[in-house]
């Protein structure tokens, strides 16, 4: 791979260069709120909350947290759904990588999966529930021939977190596939495949042995983000998980919402415990991943595959047929997953156009646009707020990411700086933001737009960064070097060569940040003090109501904005694929 070069001497001088100011600015922007949030957690966790009359350090919060009924179940559920969902998403991505990436089927799949990627988690979860629940559309389809009056009974969502894991995987797999896709687009895939084929190996063999480890390494950080998210997710867990003994994250939110303010003390402890759990699982996952890749490498080296050109005869035909059938099975699986997600989307769209749609009717019995009219009467402000907020935040995220990359020339490996960047993603949103809210107010700021923008940036910046890290590190620096040698300034080389060639990854990074911003609920509510209504805050408020039709309209609107942006991002010219070896 290309080597990294430092463009200036390694000597540390303490002059205030713009670049240094920028780097510390970004760090402060991220660490300030994170530290504020942590401080707001640590004090109550040790029993300090003067306004509620807790004025001395004590273990009262710990005792109350560990005395909560059903904690063990909560841990079990959190692990099953979080780890299971992540593993399932990785498996789907691997399947896509080995059987679909780069083929015509794979491209069709990507086009179909774009709406799923853009869809907010909550909307997808609701759609899946309306699709697969006992009274859902699938069941009605099955029962249509038999005049059944009432829906059957089966445990969906189940009590073990399996439904939740599947729901999370369906939502996260497209994100990982997108990450893998951008990683692939920066790898000299064609050259590697051509070289391998010239040596007589088959394409599936090469994909599995050569491309897969490279891609997995490139998407290690996104996998980490998915794991952290899945372990601490709240809204999806409320829709697809059990309620009597819910996941830890749901438990935390319950405590925060308890009308007894002192429930915040055990909640702070729980937030720290959950953050610790996330960090431990990330470390375990990283170690396991490294070990697996090592085994894979040893296995690859110890078992040189049979070359297609060397063997002929029944054995190779059988082998070819076997790998072909495996590929077919994987494709069918991917097809099912994609269709399920799209159907969930369709159900939501239908629901929003229905006036009456009760079991056992397969289709709505009365149609109408009333829900849309009602919603639009009340959602105009929310729509424009969501749009401008996401545009602003996504733009800032991409600019800051580029600026810091340009400073750091990060390789995408974990460093202190990236760890700091990751902190907001690791901490359970609800509790960490409450701490931030107290700190923010203490600094004399008011709730409103500035707080919301910073709150969103905390979560969009890491994702923008994630999406860009791989492509950025894999960019062929010799192009820039050539430009510099021909007399361009560093800025000219950056804008004229690098950014121009990286337009597609930049656009996708912007789109991801945009989608993340649209889906933010807790930061918007907590830091906006309700003064910045967005589509997501309105959707959640409506989702607590008795009218699924309105919830569907809000979810549609919420999904349409990011979807539009993704479609636009795909039209951005990909830039020339930079291949180190020109053949």
């Amino acid at each position, binding site marked *: 791979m290309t080597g*990294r070069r430092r463009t200036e001497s*390694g000597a540390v001088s303490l002059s205030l260069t713009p670049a240094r100011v920028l780097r*510390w600015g970004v760090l402060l922007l991220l*660490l300030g709120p*994170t*530290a504020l949030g942590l*401080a707001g957690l640590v004090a109550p966790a040790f029993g300090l*909350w*003067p*306004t*509620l*009359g807790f004025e001395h350090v004590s273990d009262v919060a710990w005792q109350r947290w560990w005395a909560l*009924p059903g904690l063990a*179940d909560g841990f079990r559920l959190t692990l099953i759904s979080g780890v299971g969902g992540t593993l399932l998403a990785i498996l789907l991505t691997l399947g896509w990588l080995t059987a679909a990436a780069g083929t015509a089927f794979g491209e069709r799949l990507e086009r179909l999966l774009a709406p799923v990627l853009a869809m907010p988690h909550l909307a997808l979860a609701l759609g899946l529930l309306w699709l697969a*629940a*006992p*009274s859902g559309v699938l069941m009605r389809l099955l029962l249509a021939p038999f005049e059944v009056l*009432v829906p059957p009974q089966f445990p969906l*969502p189940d*009590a073990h977190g399996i439904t939740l894991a599947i729901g999370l995987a369906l939502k996260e797999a497209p994100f990982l596939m997108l990450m893998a896709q951008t990683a692939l687009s920066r790898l000299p895939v064609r050259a590697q495949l051509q070289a391998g084929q010239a040596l007589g190996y088959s394409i599936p063999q090469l994909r599995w042995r050569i491309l897969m480890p490279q891609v997995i390494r490139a998407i290690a950080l996104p996998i980490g983000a998915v794991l952290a998210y899945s372990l601490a997710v709240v809204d999806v867990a409320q829709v697809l998980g*059990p*309620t*009597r*003994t819910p996941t830890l994250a749901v438990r935390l939110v319950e405590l*925060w*919402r308890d*009308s007894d*303010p002192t429930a915040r003390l055990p909640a702070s402890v729980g937030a720290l415990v959950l953050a610790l759990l996330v960090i431990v699982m990330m470390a375990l996952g990283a170690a396991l991943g490294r070990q697996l890749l090592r085994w894979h490498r040893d296995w690859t080296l110890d078992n040189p595959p049979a070359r297609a050109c060397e063997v002929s005869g029944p054995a190779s035909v059988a082998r070819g047929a076997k790998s072909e059938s495996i590929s077919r099975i994987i494709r069918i699986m991917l097809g099912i997953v994609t269709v399920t997600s799209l159907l969930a989307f369709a159900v939501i769209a239908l629901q929003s156009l229905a006036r*009456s749609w*009760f*079991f056992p009717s397969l289709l709505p019995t*009365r149609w109408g646009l009333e829900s849309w009219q*009602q919603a639009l*009467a*009340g959602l105009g402000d929310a729509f424009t707020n969501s749009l401008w907020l996401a545009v602003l935040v996504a733009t800032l995220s991409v600019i800051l990411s580029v600026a810091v990359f340009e400073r750091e*020339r990060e390789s995408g490996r974990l460093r*202190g*700086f990236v*760890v*700091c960047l990751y902190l907001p993603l690791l901490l359970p949103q609800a509790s960490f933001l*409450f701490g931030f*809210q107290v*700190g923010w*107010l*203490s600094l004399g700021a008011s709730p409103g737009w500035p707080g919301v923008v910073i709150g969103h940036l905390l979560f969009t910046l890491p994702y923008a960064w994630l999406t860009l890290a791989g492509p950025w590190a894999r960019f062929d620096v010799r192009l820039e070097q050539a430009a510099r040698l021909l007399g361009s300034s560093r800025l000219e080389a950056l804008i004229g060569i690098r950014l121009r060639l990286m337009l597609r990854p930049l656009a996708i990074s912007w789109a991801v940040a945009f989608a993340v911003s649209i889906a933010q609920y807790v930061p918007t*509510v907590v830091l906006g*003090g*309700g*003064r910045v*209504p967005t589509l997501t*805050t309105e959707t*959640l*408020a409506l*989702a*607590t*109501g*008795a*009218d699924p*039709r*309105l919830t569907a309209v809000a979810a549609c609107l919420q999904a349409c904005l990011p979807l539009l942006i993704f479609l636009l991002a795909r039209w951005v010219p990909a830039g020339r694929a930079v291949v180190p070896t020109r053949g």
Partner: protein
Amino acid sequence: MKTDHLPSRRRALALMGGSLLVIAGVSASPWATSIAYAADAGKGKAVPELAALEWKAITEKARGQRIDFHAWGGSEATNSYLRDQARIAAQRHGIEVRHVKIADTAESVSTLLAEKAAGRSDGSIDAIWINGENFRALKQAGLAWGPFVSRLPNSEYLLKGIGSRDFGLATDGMEAPWGRAQLIFMYDTALLKAPPRSMSALLEVARENPGRVTYPQPPSFHGTTFLKQALIELIPVEQRNVLATSFVDDTQFARITAPLWRYLDALHPLMWAQGERQPAGAEEQMKLLAQRSVWIALSFVSQEVANGRKEGRLPPTIEPYIHDGGTLGNVHYLAIPATAQHKAAALVWINQLMSAPAQAAKADPSRWGDETVLDVARLPDEKRQAFDELPSLAGSMSPEALGTPLSEPHPSWTDALEAEWARRYRN
């Protein structure tokens, strides 16, 4: 290769430590000036400056102010009603009302607590739709402003004695009655011949149709209500007055509530999803009822069925009913946080929502169907007309059918019921 990433990591850590120290310093200052946590904080406070003003002066002061009104936004009926009222407030009183749609009132109480913890006096909430436990949290934190109710001109026609106690807690004029709620049940006539008009009949329905009965999960508002309703029905009538005051000790609590736990032990295995999942609230249970997954639901809006059927949210086969021994009733309120910045406009807004036209529009079952807090009989003729002209829809509940509501038990019972429920069934 980069060689200086180690110092950079150290620098980052130092930076984190530094910011933590700064934070500790910043947040220590408001904490030092904290107000003691006491049940009756708010009593004996200085007379609010507004209290000295005549109503006319208050309306003058309110003109041009903008208020943030926090109210649950889960019902389109409520949201569109508030949109209309906000339009009227802008036209008549020159006030801009922003309805902040929240998913749970506790979130707003959270915000107020956070603002208080940060030592801020310029709160972001001017008025709030509230009752029960959330009001108690507000009052205990000394964040309820007042007394103000008797100063509102429209409070003249309030029902006698309404709103003096909220779930057993004295309101001290710090929240204004806005609407009356009574627990009603609803069932699907296509699936059940007759509605179960008591808790024991409900258990019978569950025995005959396993998996078709459920109730919202405590400590949600409606879940806890179901527990209280069941408790009142299941204990001997002569014991009911015990619930009006705080329970003496754990032994007494255990003795009185024993029938309730016996009942739930029998009911839970027969419930929807074997009780592993329970609806998050009455709204979710109504969605399940509409899809026939469960056959019974409940609500605190007495005209819910009429409204839902008209709106097409509920199938036409759903009918409302109540239990033979009566059902719980309570009042929901409007309050002004002590840290509100636009109290004059908040007063004018609350007074408007208490007016006869506003109350009549709210009681219309085709709009919302929330019972009025005004004594309609005492209203002058021209004001009463709006109430007399209210339509009656299919699925309405008449006042006769509703009967006299049962009163809420003392809050101490509520807390203990929620805690005991969690201890027994969340493991």
